[in-house]
């Protein structure tokens, strides 16, 4: 007849009986496991897949860009899907893989970071954020083995870095949750081979924001050039890649009007050099 912490607790306190953990994912797994992504067991035959994401360091932090196409088999499932997200004030996630599960994992991850921040009163370190994402990807391993892999790219501005020039950092992951810090730039998804080739030629240390925006858009253009599952910029429908930056002043999405100018400049340059 203990009265201090009964198991059949009252109302809202059943959400507070487990002491300790600040993890929202662990809490959902205990309180409402059916809400977790990838626990449905009902897998569609041809679910939409997302494709190319690139990230690169620049003078003020880090930039991430993703194309807008989702494919299901040989068909285009969506032309304007968004695959790059701000997960909190200083970090970005881009996703390649099964779109439905990937978007849900990002949504859970966003709550995870905010939940920790509210309960603990402080943000996770950038390495802590990357580790949490790795754990969540590992949780999706069973689905990955059935062809529903999700491979994110994580980038953020490290508030603990000694100087701002080295504060932008990039992490890649594999389906088992392995976490790999990347130098300078990286890409994931089916078109990433071509995008990374382009980045190797275009990227230089200490690029400004405007320069790096052009570099990543051009890398995605090259990926779309050679990979059928990556969408290029669509001037008739005004669909441009999603480009976001994370700097000391927070995350920011590059506006469409600016991307329009950048894309037109790239197209004009390519027109002058059709062999490029």
């Amino acid at each position: 007849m203990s009265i201090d912490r009964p198991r059949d607790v009252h109302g809202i306190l059943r959400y507070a009986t487990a002491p300790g953990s600040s993890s929202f994912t662990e809490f959902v797994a205990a309180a409402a496991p059916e809400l977790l992504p990838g626990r449905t067991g009902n897998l569609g035959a041809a679910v939409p897949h997302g494709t190319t994401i690139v990230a690169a360091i620049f003078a003020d932090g880090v930039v991430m860009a993703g194309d807008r196409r989702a494919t299901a088999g040989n068909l285009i499932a969506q032309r304007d899907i968004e695959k790059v997200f701000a997960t909190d004030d200083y970090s970005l996630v881009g996703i390649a893989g099964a779109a439905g599960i990937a978007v849900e994992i990002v949504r859970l991850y966003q709550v995870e970071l905010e939940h920790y921040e509210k309960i603990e009163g402080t943000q996770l370190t950038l390495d802590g954020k990357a580790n949490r994402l790795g754990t969540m990807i590992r949780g999706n391993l069973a689905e990955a083995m059935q062809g529903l892999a999700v491979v994110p790219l994580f980038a953020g501005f490290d508030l603990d870095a000694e100087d701002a020039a080295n504060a932008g950092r990039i992490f890649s992951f594999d389906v088992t949750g392995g976490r790999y810090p990347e130098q300078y730039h990286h890409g994931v998804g089916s078109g990433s081979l071509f995008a990374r080739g382009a980045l190797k030629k275009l990227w230089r240390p200490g690029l400004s924001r405007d320069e790096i925006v052009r570099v990543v858009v051009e890398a995605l253009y090259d990926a779309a050039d050679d990979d059928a599952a990556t969408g290029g910029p669509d001037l008739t429908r005004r669909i441009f890649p999603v480009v976001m930056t994370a700097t000391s002043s927070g995350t920011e999405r590059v506006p469409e009007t600016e991307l329009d100018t950048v894309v037109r400049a790239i197209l004009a340059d390519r027109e002058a050099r059709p062999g490029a």
Partner: protein
Amino acid sequence: MSIPFYASAEQIMRDRSEYARKGIARGRGVVVTTYADGVLFVAENASSALHKVSEIYDRIGFAGVGKYNEYENLRVAGIRLADLRGYSYDRRDVTARALANAYAQTLGSIFTEQQKPYEVEICVAEVGVGPDDDQMYRLTYDGTIVDEPEFLAMGGQADLLTNEMRAAFAPRLALREALAGAVHALGSVGGTNGAKRALPANQLEVAVLDRTRGKRKFRRITGPALSELLPDAEAAPAESGDTAPAGSVETAPTDTGATPEATPETTEQQPEA
């Protein structure tokens, strides 16, 4: 020593109420008030790590007085409930009203079913799109829920504090004026022989739910930003010895000011039982 075989329900509830009230009256006060851009929380709190005021969700804030471990427990439960709701439905489906109801149910059950009631009083506030849409709910140890339209004061000598706030409050004040009023009210109670106390920035925990902000409306005001907002007299460092030792929040019996018996029992509602 004789063992009482029977105690009336009335007697039990009265004892529990008295017990909870004594615990709450031992601590320092918190003022929650509306102002032009939303809701302002001002707590007297010497600790910069153990908070009395917290963010719950995008538009919802929390303030608690009483026993730290108990209102901290309620705070964490509130964040978990809100995040779970927002994740399973939509962010806009998380409301202060639902959260306040959940708190009321819990506090009510604990009060009637457990031997020791929670020695807490909490406030759940939500900022709306306009000043008329702001909501503040006061929840007491027995699960009583009160919708406060303008301001509320909790903690030690809450009645005196409420009177001070009533004099200082005006609708839609600017942040600076609203903060000055709240800090003045907090400084007016708890001094030796009714003397006014100066509350410097390091004795205050201040936060706002600011409707002009982006997605997350809650913002703490600390350090230079707080000193700059405070009236000059209050911002000056206090040399008085009545500051609580660092780390003691609420429960330290050394807390100065109000003796438990000094708190009049006027405005607080009786339990429903």
